[in-house]
């Protein structure tokens, strides 16, 4: 009895202290180290620690025990360009990040940069910074063709839709349906894309959503046919665009600049398009035409 009272009092005291010391709104939450830029650290140590997603084809995934994907190729080429600015050899060290840790590890300084098909949303931009977009996609809903062909987003009003946990889809799809005045969707958060797609095949949910290229690739890799007249299909109109950026620590201008330069160099030299064609070109599993999307290639000089 006495023991329990002691615990209760301590817990309450801790909670009250926690509330009292919590800073006011709009205070700087994660003061980045302005003393030394991440670029200086990378130069000095001769290595760059990169958070990389390894569970979402075609961006970063495991194949035969090797890490492959668009993000992986891009970052390898980027570091090659980075070496020019650092004027020394830089070793790549990958750390696996999940959708839960891809932002917070950048904040906490665990990793120097993060590439995990991270859509540059405002909420995220408030916590870390992003380079210029290096990938473009749209978010539609994957559905079972047997339950109706050529479905539109409006068909999913009031239905159950699966999302990937800790993706930005939750807010985006709810806001889209609200703006259109349609019935709210019920969302179910899955731990992995493949779990959600399996649930869709098993008819447990009406649709599954994330970046189109990820859901199509994941479904095809699991052996499901994707297309308007196949087993699974994606809605023609998306509810949200996606711009993938490299996550870098907040307020670290030097580091962000040099990564932007590396991306521009890739674009200007044509290497970017080569890599893009490899993963999203007509011969790839899920072609995503570049269309009018361009990286802002700043002019040198």
């Amino acid at each position, binding site marked *: *009895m006495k023991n*329990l009272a002691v*615990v*209760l009092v301590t*817990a309450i005291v801790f*909670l009250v202290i*926690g*509330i009292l*010391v*919590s*800073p*006011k*709104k709009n*205070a700087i*939450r994660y003061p980045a180290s302005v003393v030394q830029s991440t670029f200086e650290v990378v130069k000095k140590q001769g290595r760059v620690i990169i958070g990389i997603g390894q569970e979402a084809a075609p961006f970063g995934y495991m194949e035969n025990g090797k890490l492959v994907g668009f993000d992986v190729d891009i970052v390898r080429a980027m570091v090659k360009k980075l070496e020019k600015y650092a004027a020394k050899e830089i070793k790549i060290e990958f750390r696996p990040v999940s*959708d*839960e840790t891809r*932002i*917070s590890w950048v*904040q906490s300084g665990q990793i120097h940069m993060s590439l995990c098909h991270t859509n540059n949303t405002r*909420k*995220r931009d408030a*916590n870390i910074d992003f380079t210029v977009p290096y990938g473009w996609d749209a978010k539609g809903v994957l559905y079972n063709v047997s339950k109706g062909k050529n479905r539109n987003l409006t068909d999913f009003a009031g239905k*159950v839709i*699966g999302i990937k*946990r*800790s*993706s930005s889809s*939750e*807010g985006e799809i709810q806001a889209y349906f609200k703006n259109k005045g349609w019935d709210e969707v*019920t*969302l*179910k*958060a*899955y*731990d992995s894309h493949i*779990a*959600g797609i*399996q*649930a869709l095949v*098993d*008819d*447990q*949910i009406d649709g599954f959503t994330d970046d189109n290229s990820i859901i199509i690739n994941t479904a095809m890799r699991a052996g499901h046919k994707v297309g308007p007249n196949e087993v699974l299909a994606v809605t023609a109109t998306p509810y949200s665009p996606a711009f993938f950026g490299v996550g870098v620590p907040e307020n670290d201008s030097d580091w962000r600049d040099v990564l932007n330069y590396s991306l521009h160099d890739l674009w200007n030299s044509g290497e970017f398009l080569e890599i893009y064609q490899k993963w999203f070109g007509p011969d790839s599993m899920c072609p995503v035409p570049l269309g009018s999307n361009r990286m802002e290639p700043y002019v040198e000089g």
Partner: protein
Amino acid sequence: MNFREYVFAEPYFGWLCAGVQMTLLITALTTILSLVLGAVVAAFATSSSRTGRLVAKTYVSLFRNLPLVPLLLFLVFAMPGVFRFLTGRRFPVGMDFLLLVLGLSLNTSAYIAEILRSGIQALPAEHAFAARVLGLKPLAIRISVVYPQALRIVLPALGTRLIHNMKNSAIALVLPLPLEYMEVVGQAGRIAGQTFAWAEPLLFAAAVHLSLAILFSLIVNKLAREAQRKIEVSR
């Protein structure tokens, strides 16, 4: 630490409050179901039929030795496919929450059955004899003489297991539940997915679980003391 922004701001505080309600709901449902299941299995375990005892023993050894995380994952992710494979029909939609309750109850009921069995076997055989001499039927003896006394003996152990059962509800975090069905830890994870701050909502969830555990153990202690008094009186 910034509780003001990540815990006590809308919509996050609303999510957490809904999560607390779901934690309580899951706890209530699993407690009832596992008590019922546990009592049935304990009845089998102490019955005179050999098959009955074997069934009870298998049940207890199966579900006590399966860890909850893979068990729940299996129930939610593999059941639809297994069901279709066996029956050729579609697994009913929207069962995830019920499967969660079922999975937690299967685990807890195996422990409860074991606790109740030990309580029943700890009773002196004279009690049942006396009741039989008085002309009570076997079922009546069980219900009115054996079970209430056994329950009094095992109350502390039972209470500990039920508090453990409440803590187990946090494993729902690994399951794909509709957002409004997520319990408090799941909601904390949902906030973390939006704000990238795990520490604050998690500390809130920890405080909730801690205070619930303390509250329940106070209740159990009180009940156990009364039960102890009754046991002493009956001697």
